[in-house]
């Protein structure tokens, strides 16, 4: 019989061993029935701990229904009353409602006794698009970008395609100075609106994503965290941006500032005009020439794609 300590076996069950050690343990497991039974028992213990903690979280989710409203304060300790323990819930709700001080109803959550689909990171609050995007961002890995067969590394092409859907003022920034290479862009959809996702990758670390959603708001950058994902969101020129990555605040804020202050791409100047051709005030002031046709003169003066000029007028900005 091979001697393997519980210390090693628990580390194996918890997935804490290095690959070589894991293989070595697995080799022993195939040959030693006693050790294999011990590992099964440890796995069973592990599973029971997980089940017990999930059941506790299900209880918390079932119990906490929080409404904090300045005019109507109601409490709905649904499961607590059923379980004969309403006091704890009422106390919690009263404390938290006062502490949270929300001016809008906050409901934690519509609770059903489903114990197998419990969120690890967040409760089921009404979510903003930034929160939803952060969840999606957490699914991205380096390999999901590295193995892409249809990657579009062309910034101009990406900008052109996304601007068609999101709006002509869309920025597809050049983040090479930040050490971030553009990998690809793609058009997603958020509640019926086009959502642009522009992905960058540095020499190391997690991917960095810039999301863009049409919006009629204007707001200053704000940093927040959702799980391990840091986010900076702001709105300008009819587009809401969200810069998201598993990175620290300083890096994200600096990168967001860079994007905000980055001018739209300059388009190669056409051949010098003849003497009799006056330059329009707009181009003279900005120093930028638009490749857009005359009919789109109400749109921003710069095409998002300096190399691929649109053949038709840019669509009006979405509402």
């Amino acid at each position: 019989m091979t001697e393997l300590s519980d210390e090693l076996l628990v580390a194996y069950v918890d997935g804490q061993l290095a690959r070589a050690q894991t293989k070595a343990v697995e080799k022993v497991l195939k040959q030693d029935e006693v050790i294999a039974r011990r590992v099964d028992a440890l796995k069973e213990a592990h599973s029971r701990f997980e089940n017990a903690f999930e059941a506790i979280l299900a209880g918390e989710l079932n119990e906490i229904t929080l409404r904090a409203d300045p005019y109507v304060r109601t409490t709905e300790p649904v499961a607590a009353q059923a379980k004969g323990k309403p006091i704890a819930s009422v106390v919690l709700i009263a404390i938290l409602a006062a502490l949270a001080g929300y001016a809008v109803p906050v409901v934690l959550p519509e609770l059903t006794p489903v114990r197998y689909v419990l969120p690890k990171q967040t409760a089921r609050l009404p979510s903003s698009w930034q929160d939803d995007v952060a969840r999606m961002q957490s699914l991205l890995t380096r390999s999901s970008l590295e193995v892409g067969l249809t990657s579009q590394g062309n910034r101009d092409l990406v900008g052109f395609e996304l601007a068609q859907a999101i709006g002509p003022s869309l920025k597809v920034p050049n983040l090479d100075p930040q050490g971030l290479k553009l990998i690809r862009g793609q058009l997603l959809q958020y509640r019926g609106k086009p959502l642009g996702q522009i992905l960058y990758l540095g020499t190391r670390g997690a991917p960095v994503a810039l999301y863009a959603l049409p919006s009629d708001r204007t707001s200053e950058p704000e940093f927040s965290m959702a799980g391990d994902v840091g986010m900076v969101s702001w709105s300008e020129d009819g587009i809401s941006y969200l810069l998201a990555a598993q990175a620290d605040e300083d890096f994200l804020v600096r990168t967001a500032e860079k994007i905000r202050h980055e001018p739209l791409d300059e388009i190669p100047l056409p051949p010098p005009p003849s003497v009799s051709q006056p330059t329009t005030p707009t181009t003279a002031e900005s120093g930028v020439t638009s490749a857009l046709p005359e009919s789109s003169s109400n749109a921003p003066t710069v095409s998002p794609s300096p190399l691929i000029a649109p053949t038709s007028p840019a669509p009006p900005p979405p509402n």
Partner: protein
Amino acid sequence: MIEVGQNHDSFRQGLVILLPRLKRFADVLIGDKQDGTALLGRALKRMLAEQYRYQRGTPLDRWAFAEIYRLWLHELRDHAEPMRQAKVETGFDLLLYPEELVDDVTPDFLGQLPPQQRSALLLVYGEGFDYEDAGRVLDCSVDAVASRLIRASASLADRLGEGWQVASSATVETLYPKGSQHDRTQ
């Protein structure tokens, strides 16, 4: 630029989102819903009043768990009877929902463990933290976390399997081993 007011709102909203998980942590730490609620209330009040201590960029959940644990430890040390205060007086299974979906052995087993060991189990098996993060929350080394997990896992495995009669190491670490003065007074 980032404004303090906006950050304050984000901080507060972050805590609200975390509430069920923070409540579970407080309940498991104390072993009682009502006391867990009270502890969480005091901890949240302190976090909001002293949020300047939160360093931006730190995962809020780790920070909040550590704050609850720190407050619990602080109050425990100030308590006239810290050992009695740390004991789970009521059935641990009262924390479970729905109770029937969990076996009979595990809640009782968890209830007999010291709070620090229960918390380590919760952070790693319930929250999915790695040993290092769990150690940061519980203000102990990675080895201490690993040791707590090994003792608890091996002990429960013994109880579930053939070695159930053998005195488990987790029992040794229990605050009130069978036969102790406290045990007899209960």
